[in-house]
């Protein structure tokens, strides 16, 4: 466990230092497309469904206790912004991005391409991990915004058309504070930095044949998802303890 976190921090350090290499602009952009753009449908779809589920539950609770959706609605809206949008977006994005990163790097590793890179005077970490790291950091907050918008919109529509109540009252921002947004943003940044590192570490370490790539993907995805949960909790505790 400690060894793993140590290896991840070292990889993170090397990847950050790799940003000094000037020729990575194009690789960065193509990673923004493949880590970000290609994840948008999954996040939109998943969070829209989740928004509907949340309203269904809120509706059940409202009928039981308060009698009106307008009372619990804003609380749920804050919950979506502060907690669900960052966490579920991160988990969805983590599973897709981590799977792709560890699969790609893992199959490069077992095909000796990393060693071919070393002999071509290129550092595989700079070449492969750095663009993915920065692309993911740049993209995760945007994905979180997309996820939050998708969840809120679908919640609003569900309330309006299925429960025939005022959808706008559900998404009222009366409880949303600056602290909520800062908390959500921090979570997104942390997940964005962690996911590619966890996945890349497993990919780079793959040795052997196709089986090694499969193992790298399995372990990489699990560690990325687990890391997101842990980071989410730690950040939640931090913001809770400073009272934001």
């Amino acid at each position, binding site marked *: 466990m400690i060894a793993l976190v140590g290896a991840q921090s070292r990889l993170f350090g090397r990847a950050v230092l790799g940003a000094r290499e000037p020729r990575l602009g194009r690789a960065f952009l193509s990673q923004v497309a493949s880590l970000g753009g290609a994840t948008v449908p999954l996040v939109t779809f998943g969070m829209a*469904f989740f928004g509907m589920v949340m309203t269904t539950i809120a509706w059940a609770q409202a009928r039981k206790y308060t009698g009106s959706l307008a009372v619990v609605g804003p609380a749920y809206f804050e*919950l979506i912004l502060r907690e669900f949008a960052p966490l579920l977006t991160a988990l969805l994005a983590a599973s897709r991005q981590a*799977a792709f990163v560890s699969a790609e790097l893992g199959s490069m590793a077992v095909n000796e391409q990393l060693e071919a890179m070393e002999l071509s005077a290129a550092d595989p970490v700079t070449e492969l991990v750095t663009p993915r790291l920065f692309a993911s950091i740049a993209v995760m907050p945007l994905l979180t915004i997309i996820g939050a918008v998708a969840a809120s919109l679908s919640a609003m529509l569900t309330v309006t058309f299925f429960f025939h109540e005022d959808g706008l009252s559900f998404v009222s921002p009366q409880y949303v504070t600056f602290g909520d947004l800062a908390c959500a943003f921090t979570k997104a940044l942390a997940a964005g930095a962690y996911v590619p590192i966890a996945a890349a570490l497993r990919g780079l370490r793959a040795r052997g044949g*196709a*089986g090694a*790539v499969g193992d*790298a*993907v399995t372990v990489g995805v699990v560690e990325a998802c687990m890391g997101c949960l842990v980071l*989410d909790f730690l950040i939640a505790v931090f913001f809770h303890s400073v009272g934001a």
Partner: protein
Amino acid sequence: MRLLGRLTIMVLRAVGAVALVCARTALALRHVSGRELARALTLFGYRSLPLTLGAATMIGATVVLQAGVYATRFGLRLFTGWAAGYALIWEFGPLLLGLIMAARIGARNAAELSLLSVNGQLEGLRGISLDPFRLLVAPRVVAAFLSVGALAAVTFLVAILWEAVAAFFTLHLPLRVFFTSFPDMLRWTDLVGGLTKTIIFGGAIAVISTAVGLRTRGGAQGVGRAAAEAVVACCATIFALDLLLTPLLSRWLS
């Protein structure tokens, strides 16, 4: 229009592949080898236990942290137990456990099966007239079902315990108070609903990852791609199923 057509074909093919896996698994069910089943149960169930316990801890603590904020805001501190338990059993528990199991079991299963098909071992089995479904696929599907069900029960239990602990430390809510709100407001049907949801997620993960894994062609890259696709397909399906199951189950059970 063309895009729509392509999408339809894609969906139809996916549904076809999933249906095929379901049907052939059902047919092979009577002949499942006990040894393979035990192996798959160890791999999917037992080996996932540490991950599940870790996840349950995180989920429980996070839910209380959030629920606590609202409980204090609405002056419902005494109901924290109920609110946290309800959210956990109905929504948080099944969904998060489903996503994590998609990563753990789905990726693993797809990777293993695709490895067998890439290496030509499935063809080899057919060559000596052994049915790969009976030998390899059916035990995995059954094992994934059983494992996820059992893991769900463990998760709920552990997560609720951690919720109580977290409530004690953050909200200074005595453990007794936390749990007294349980029997009043949570019914056993809630538990049945949450467990049913999770088990269905487990089945979907098993079937989808199997379908993706068996379709793979092409070396190390193919195996990686299959694992990645399986995770994405499982996650998307879990969210869709979640939407379908929540209203259905809550209507049936109330």
